[in-house]
């Protein structure tokens, strides 16, 4: 466990040492504000809630989170520091978890910096604060799921660009798994059970339930499971690299 904490702190510190972190935070804040107030019609709707704010998170994350996740392992592989990290007395599982948690903490900080939106809506009206909390929880969980996917794909390559593109594509498929665009790929040949299973994997469906203020345990469990599965897959990818 000491290893996990040390890797976590190192990762977090290395985030703050790179310009990427600040670029990410600024772009995230500017875009989430722009989407909420212009595209989302925050004022025109005349409702004191943060639906226009949360609705755009999946699309923001689709491009911003892979940019964070791409360097998790690809960079270590490119620079060779992975050989150092994996020969320190840390298990691959602990290293994977530590790196993921550091990136997730960073995204959580960016998300926390959107608090003025919450203050605005609280000042203008009388929003359902419970719904806003579940919205934030859902948003954070979804970001975690994107990051976990990115972590796994980043471990498969030494190129950050490839990691980024793969992650965007896979996240996009997961995001829209409940929609015809993806489901039609399966409808022609797959049994109805599989189609339904794929449909139930959609991030968007689970996220929307949470952002509407429904803290259904199933949605939380869904995201937690997704994160766990992809992180486990990351350790498998690393182990495979070891025996290849």
């Amino acid at each position, binding site marked *: 466990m000491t290893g996990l904490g040390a890797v976590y702190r190192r990762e977090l*510190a*290395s985030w703050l040492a790179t310009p990427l972190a600040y670029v990410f935070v600024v772009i995230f804040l500017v875009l989430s504000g722009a989407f909420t107030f212009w595209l989302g019609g925050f004022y025109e709707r005349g409702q004191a809630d943060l639906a226009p704010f949360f609705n755009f998170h999946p699309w923001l994350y689709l491009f911003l989170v892979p940019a964070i996740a791409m360097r998790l392992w690809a960079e270590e592989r490119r620079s*060779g520091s992975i050989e150092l990290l994996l*020969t*320190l007395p840390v298990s691959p599982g602990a290293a994977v978890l530590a790196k993921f948690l550091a990136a997730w903490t960073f995204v959580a900080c960016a998300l926390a910096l959107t608090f003025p939106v919450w203050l605005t809506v609280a000042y203008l009206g009388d929003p359902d604060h419970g719904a806003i909390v579940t919205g934030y929880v859902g948003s954070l969980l979804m970001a975690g799921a994107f990051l976990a996917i990115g972590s796994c794909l980043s471990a498969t390559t030494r190129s950050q660009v490839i990691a980024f593109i793969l992650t965007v594509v896979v996240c996009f498929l997961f995001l829209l798994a409940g929609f015809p665009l993806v489901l039609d790929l399966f409808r022609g040949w797959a049994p109805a059970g599989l189609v339904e299973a794929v449909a139930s994997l959609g991030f968007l469906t689970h996220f929307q339930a949470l952002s509407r203020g429904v803290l259904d345990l199933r949605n939380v469990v869904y995201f937690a499971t997704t994160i766990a599965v992809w992180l486990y897959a990351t350790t498998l990818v690393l182990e495979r690299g*070891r025996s290849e």
Partner: protein
Amino acid sequence: MIEVNHLTKRYGDVLAVDDLSFGVAPGEILGFLGPNGAGKSTTMRIVAGFVAPTAGTARVCGHDVARAPLAARRALGYLPEGAPSYPEMTPRAFLGFCADVRGLAGDLRRRRLDDTVERLGLGPVLERPIETLSKGFRRRVGLAQAILHDPPVLVLDEPTDGLDPNQKHEVRTLIRGMAAGKTIVISTHILEEVDALCTRAVVIARGRLLADAPPRELEARSRYHGAVTLRLADAGQFERARAALAALPDVADVEVDARESRLTALPRAGRPILPVIGELAAHEGLSLRELHLESGRLDEVFRAITNPGTDGRAHAAAPATASPRVADATVETRS
């Protein structure tokens, strides 16, 4: 200690390590030699637990690197090839991170960090990002990371690669200073390093173990073992000296270097030729500038072992082709 048993590593069709077995005991400094691509780094990576073997086992202090990876890694200090680190960190932050991962805390942590920084002379660069450091300092940061926790076993992949002669000397002194009671394996291309540092040398090529002996013994396999080299003060005596040496019954061959007026007499196996050559020089009235007994040449043994086809005798042909220059050189020195 390190025990490697029937280690095999296959990358697709390529056999990188082929049924390799050896052991290293505390107090030994093992020099791991071999041409590029011989499997040195792969073997070290397996011992460090970075690469999983296809077959066979490796143990560090009795811990199987596959079954008890964390225990094995705790006992090990490892310098990967090229000394990778995190370029954006300062040496202070980087070594602090390594200390934390290794669970060093409190007073011990501070003592170990201070000691390591001092040993490697990292004081002046502690606060500069590693990416801005010279190659020598980066290598030392890598070494610092390996010795930080004072491990009983050290595996160092090319620890002096890219260092200038002074830094090489410092690193060798450092390694020698730590050797007591530790098990150390270094890989290197530099044969003088093996001579200067190692108590034992293992030569591998194409993944196979070809020789395992102290450097002195390897040198004894050289054609030059027991050879006598003499350098003449008077170049005019060169041809006469050569003929006289070649006529000695215990001399197998004479190599000449006309440019330097140097003659090397190679003995027949195991025959001491220094005394007879001494007598010969006195008898023939040769004026010598230099006379010395060779203990053997590792590089020649290395070539003979790793390239059995050429047998290291390839350059025995050199004197013949060099003979036109003999005349030139003699003329030059006369004029």
